């Protein structure tokens, strides 16, 4: 329990990851699936950025004077997650576009109903 409280960022991101994973797998509504996917991705971003954060240090942006290497947090995870966010946004956009297409063709976005219908 104590370990969970001291690493509350990690614990929180794991819970979010689980929520996202469950929503992605268990719901048959496509929009909910996509939301679940986003929650999962966000959990990973939180986890990664929490790993780069060092307490009582500031963001690695030099304003007036350079305060030495000990004054800033690790910038690598944040920059990686910047890429990660771009990737997540583009997959979400693609998935939503496909959902629109699917709704045009089948008239529903419930995946289990779609699976029952026969294609042409």
């Amino acid at each position, binding site marked *: 329990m104590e370990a969970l409280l001291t690493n509350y960022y990690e614990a929180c991101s794991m819970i979010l*990851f689980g929520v*996202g*994973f469950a929503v*992605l*797998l268990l719901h048959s509504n*496509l929009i909910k*699936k996509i939301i679940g*996917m986003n929650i*999962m*991705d966000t959990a*990973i971003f939180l*986890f*990664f950025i929490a*790993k780069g954060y060092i307490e009582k240090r500031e963001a690695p942006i030099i304003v007036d004077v350079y305060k030495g290497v000990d004054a800033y947090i690790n910038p690598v*995870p944040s920059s*990686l997650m910047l*890429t*990660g966010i771009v*990737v997540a946004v*583009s*997959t979400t956009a*693609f*998935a939503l576009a*496909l*959902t629109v*297409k*699917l709704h045009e*063709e*089948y008239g529903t976005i419930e*995946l289990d109903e*779609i*699976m029952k219908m026969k*294609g*042409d």
Partner: protein
Amino acid sequence: MIIKSFPLVTILVLFISAFIMPLIKDGKLVKTISLASMFLGLILSLTTAFYVIKYGKFYYRIGHFSAPMGIEFYIGNIEAVMGILFTFVSLMIIWYSVYSIDREIISSKISLYYLLINILIGSLLGVIFTNDLFNAFVFIEVGTLASCGIIVVKDKKDNIKATLKYLIMSCLGSGLVLMGIAFIYSITGQLNITFIHKELLSVYHQYPRAILISLSLFTVGLGVKSAMFPLHTWLPDAHSSAPSSSSAILSALVLKAFVLLLIKVLYRAFGMDIITEFPVLNIILILGSVGMIMGSVFAIFQRQIKRVIAYSSVAQMGYVFLGIGLGTDLGVAIAVFHMVGHAVTKSALFLAVGAMIEKTGSKELKGLRGIGKEMPATSALFLLGALSMVGIPVLPGFASKWNLALASIEVDKILIIGIILVSSLLNAVYYFPIIINGFFGEENLKDKIYKSKSKPIKELLPIFCLIFAMIYAGFSSGSIINFIKNGIV
């Protein structure tokens, strides 16, 4: 040396030429650009391979930033072989698609289709060459979106359904991979595979749980993308509904790149010492063997020929996972060799079947009776490919099965030989009826006119080249396996 930059140049050529295509409206010119860029890629990878044979493996720093800060490419024996394989197979598939794609997708989408293919192959080559895990993740995502694109390009009901299923499963997989990278980063502080291995060797005693979690995240995440057995559910729909040139690329190349990344993570980032302390390899071994049997069993019950071949891919990926799971250098070398053999064979099979479906207009197995009389050349090529899948001596399917059996004796797992035998017999159960009904039987051949539906020889040349490459891979299997084995770590 300028040759060291050739892998990067290959990827850049593919990416840059891809984005010229939508500016050009002329379909023929787009096809020419795609073919030319892939041909250039093949020449560059051949040069790289000769360089590797002569001077050994090398690292290439992108932008001349050295390793832990910058991104690195690592070109060893496996990467050299894979570079040739990917560019060769995709060149042949594009060559085939030049004649047939107009009949499968509408003409306004042709330039977009070739854009997606070039990006896909470029990103897969990136996954293979890169020595940086996060870089690999970005290439994986680019590849996933592009491969979804080449399925949905046909714009039918089935395609959209299959693509969405594939996209959701892939996003799940890439999410897990990214989480695995996060765990490794949190205990090592590195993303470069070489440096991760160095750090892990000194800290792995302190973090057994974190390493176990990260190993399983990588295995499941990349397993989803490369159709490891219980996670293969997206594959038959996606591969059977896509245009036949897309199916060939998806089945022959896309699955392979992700398995290769798994091999790199398991054997290079973690290393033999660490993974043998965890049960992950045994689980991969078991899932691989179950996949070998169940993939074939599912294939027997299919009615559409493309679905049969798609399920056969699941079974064949089982062999690859079996090789990885053995946990020896020989096992991994055979897994990589099986990827080579399967890539050339399966792409030839998908293209041959694509030609049959195009001419007969029937996707069902029933509609392909007597095909041997109507399309003798195509059916003969299909027969050769099927023989390799079943494991007839000299062909690569036999070489990998034989060597897998030898490798499993080496680690005292005799049971695996039985599984390989059963799986080969099951392969025969679903490939031979297609061939027998195609060539023999009074009823089947009645009313069929000899060569009535045969394709012009120039359209069959790419399939012929693939089959020729397959036979070559079978004959020189010993030296290829040795070459791969020397370059695992």
